[in-house]
């Protein structure tokens, strides 16, 4: 549904990265990890289309949910100026979420940049499993939610592109290294295309369950306009499914990158 939701908290987490908490009993109760909301950043024409943003976590008791976004262009810039008690026009929760792990499984999440947010929700909702987070950031000053990830993971491994914190290099590096030693039951990944592509390929090669949360430019956000195409296998052929409705989460082995 489309609704004007009240902002109950906003917080700058790092330069250009903001957390927003919205009041919504419905979303707080019904959203599952991997789902997103579609936001009208302003009335009027300046950011005409809605912007899809993942749900970071919900608080069913308070009837609130959070999302975190990075200022990229016009829409997110406008969003970043909103304040407590302002309203945001949201549609959601939308899309299909992750397959939750089952008790006792070994879960690895691999996230890069803004891709870490849906993974947080997944970790928070995955109980009685052993959880490792591989998180890649640009640099030390762009690291966000480290404490939160540590709270919901058994281990958090951080990499930075420039080596200013944690392991220097891409997040695939420690992921591969660890794979030498142990094998997770489920891998979940979200982030930049090259990253998710190599994680997916590694997992497929080794027969590890892997789900990928995809990004694509959207129109309607609900499956009606068919713009948010995602190339997937279809027998010997391929077809385009749609990130907003069939995804954003897809099994790695279905994707054609």
């Amino acid at each position, binding site marked *: 549904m489309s609704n004007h939701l009240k902002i109950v908290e906003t917080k700058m987490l790092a330069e250009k990265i903001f957390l927003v908490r919205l009041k919504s009993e419905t979303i707080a109760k019904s959203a599952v990890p991997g789902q997103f909301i579609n936001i009208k950043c302003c009335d009027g024409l300046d950011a*005409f289309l809605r912007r899809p943003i993942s749900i970071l976590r919900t608080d069913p008791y308070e009837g609130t949910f959070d999302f975190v976004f990075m200022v990229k262009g016009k829409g997110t810039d406008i969003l970043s100026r909103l304040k407590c008690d302002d309203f945001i026009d949201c549609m959601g929760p939308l899309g299909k979420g992750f397959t939750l792990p089952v008790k006792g499984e070994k879960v690895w999440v691999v996230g890069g940049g803004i891709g870490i947010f849906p993974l947080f929700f997944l970790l928070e909702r995955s109980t009685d499993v052993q959880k490792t987070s591989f998180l890649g950031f640009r640099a030390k000053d762009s690291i966000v939610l480290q404490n939160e990830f540590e709270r919901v993971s058994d281990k958090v491994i951080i990499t930075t592109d420039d080596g200013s914190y944690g392991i220097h290099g891409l997040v695939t590096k420690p992921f591969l290294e660890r794979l030498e030693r142990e094998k997770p039951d489920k891998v979940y990944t979200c982030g930049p295309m090259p990253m998710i592509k190599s994680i997916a390929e590694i997992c497929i090669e080794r027969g590890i369950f892997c789900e990928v949360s995809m990004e694509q*430019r959207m129109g*309607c956000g609900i499956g*009606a*306009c068919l713009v948010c195409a995602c190339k997937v296998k279809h027998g010997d052929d391929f077809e385009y499914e749609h990130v907003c409705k069939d995804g954003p989460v897809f099994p790695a082995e279905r994707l054609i990158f």
Partner: protein
Amino acid sequence: MDLSVNIAGLRLKNPVIAASGTFGFGREYSEYFDLNKLGGISVKGLTLEPRKGNPPPRIAETPAGILNSVGLQNPGVHAFIEHEIPFIRKYDTAIIANVAANSVEEYCTMVEILSDADIDAIELNVSCPNVKQGCLLFGSTAQGILQVTSAVRKVCKKPLIVKLTPNVTDITEMAKAAEDAGADCVSLINTLLGMAIDIDSKKPVLANITGGLSGPAVKPVAVRMVYQVANSVKIPVIGMGGICNADDAIEFLLAGAQAIMVGTAGFVNPNVWVEVKEGIELYMENHGFRSVQEINEALIV
């Protein structure tokens, strides 16, 4: 006050129709509002065989508009008849089958098939800018429109709407060709061909390079074309292009459109179709119009 319109044999309970390609087959938006409130639904452009469509990105945002390059992804006319019509038929709203093809024969085959299906009208899409061959080629010349429409007319047992492209020098020629060939109605405008470039990556935003422009940005062009066409043919006109609210819709009705379609605006406001319908009602009340036709005749020039 009567909101219903009668368009060459097609009776609509109100003049608000969902535009082809923006509304799928109605399923998605049925969760957002009661489809019974719609005058009609023009379904996603159909082809004879299923089509995959173009690679993504398929959409770009532009000032007050969007570019799309979906490229007619659809399950094909047979799947439509089998799986989609039964769903839409549960609602009291007209079903308009939007048809695209690569050849005159293919148009005819499809129209023959659809003539026996449980739909209310056929909209010939001779104006899709996002597929490599056919389609737009027919719509870009009066000759092409005449040719396709005449052939289709012979096999068409439903009210026949021809959807015109705005990417032409003289839209009235195209409308006249459709009229001469026996179309019952013309609908316009399809999208304006456009392009957007990402200056950081130095690539076109759309994988297909160009795409079709829709949304508020195109409204003045659409209103002008509807006005010109309404003044040059006798068959009814369905107007569209950038309608975001009832005021926009009324501009088209004053310009001479007997009914209107709304597409892009629904992406932003899933309730737009209902709001447009209710706003037209209010306007009629406030201005003493008893029928949509009275609005069509009210423009003072």
